């Protein structure tokens, strides 16, 4: 089972590496959004962590939608999606593979955006790098879990992009808020009880929606 999962993930990563469908656009959009946000941020130093934390996670959300929308894009032509679903695999395994690919994409995006915000907003997000890493990993997992599921839901719909955004944005608002607040606390160096509560929230969100995705994905891909 693990090898099948690996091959599903490997397939998507190789396709992305060769065709470069989503990642370049996602990274570029993230950088542009980060620069534009920071152009507008003319704040006092003590006000910057709160604003930068929120803007960082908004930039991750907007740019991450590009990768989320491309979930399963490789299989949209020539009946490849039907072939994948008919393959003797549990549908939950396909979900986990797609989730993993989106998770990796979001982590890559954060690897670019977090240092960029450190430079542009002049806030010490990497002062406690392990704390920021934990926030980024749990936030990305929650985003990927929801995004993958909703992306499969809107597969083949008319006006897919608009409907996907309409459904994903409200669902991911708790992740954005928790991520923003946890990032602010990292930037001000307060990685104590309050920070831990937001991290727990992000963890709970990721667990709940990953479990729901594993259970419900089969209903989305059936004909």
């Amino acid at each position: 089972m693990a090898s099948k999962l690996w091959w599903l993930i490997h397939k998507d990563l190789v396709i992305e590496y060769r065709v470069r469908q989503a990642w370049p656009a996602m990274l570029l959009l993230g950088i542009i959004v980060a620069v534009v946000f920071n152009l507008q941020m003319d704040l006092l130093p003590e006000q910057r962590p709160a604003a930068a934390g929120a803007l960082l996670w908004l930039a991750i959300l907007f740019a991450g939608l590009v990768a989320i929308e491309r979930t399963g894009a490789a299989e949209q032509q020539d009946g490849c999606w039907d072939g994948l679903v008919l393959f003797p695999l549990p549908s939950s395994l396909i979900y986990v593979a797609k989730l993993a690919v989106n998770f990796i994409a979001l982590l890559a995006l954060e690897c670019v955006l977090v240092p960029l915000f450190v430079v542009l907003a002049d806030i010490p997000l990497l002062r406690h790098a392990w704390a920021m890493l934990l926030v980024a990993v749990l936030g990305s997992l929650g985003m990927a879990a929801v995004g993958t599921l909703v992306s499969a839901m809107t597969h083949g719909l008319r006006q897919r992009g608009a409907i996907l955004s309409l459904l994903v944005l409200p669902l991911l608002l708790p992740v954005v808020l928790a991520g923003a607040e946890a990032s602010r606390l990292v930037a001000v160096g307060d990685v104590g009880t309050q920070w831990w509560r937001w991290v727990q929230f992000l963890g709970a969100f990721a667990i709940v929606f990953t479990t729901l995705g594993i259970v419900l994905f089969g209903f989305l891909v059936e004909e």
Partner: protein
Amino acid sequence: MGIITTSKSGRPVLWTSLVAVLLTGAIVAMYLAPTEQTMGDVQRVMYVHIAVAWLALLGFVAMAACGLAYLLSRNLWWDQWSMATCEIGWLCSTLTLVTGSLWAHAAWGTWWTWDPRLVSSFILWAFYSGNLILRSGLDDGPQRARLSAVLVIIGVADVPLVVMATRWFRGIHPVSPAMEPSMRYVLLASMVGLTAIMTLLLVRRRTQLQHESLVMQLQMQADEN
């Protein structure tokens, strides 16, 4: 093929009773309930706000239960209930945001603030809206029912956030506002009255959806012949 049957007997009495309940509730809330010391008359909006907020939450749970029932039974009857609940729930959710905003302006001096419970209520409203838009983009039938059912089940995971938000986070929204006993009676009456009215609207809308589905089936049969 089922036969459309409607019974009109008793309907005017029922509607008249509900209008009477609504008017009585409004009069009691406006004139008989005591005036709150700090906020004054604007506090009276709470009699509607709390009732519709409760209905919006209840509707969301009911909608998810209908979605789950559909996925397990594959009976479109459940999808009609889910759709009707979504529409009524959206109405209640919208009223929650509007009345809450009116109250917030008087109590907190702002129309909106990023309090966790307000955010959760907004997410709930956005979910109702998203479900309506998703459904409008799909043709009537099993696919629409299936996708909508999955969406509402995902969305119901948000409801615990709404309920527990004030416990998990420090917000400014009152958890359980202190009230005079007479105020509590008015609130209870308002909740019962509005629940009865929304339930009636729900049943009516579900029946309408059933009729629409039957008409569509008959049209398809006619086209085939």
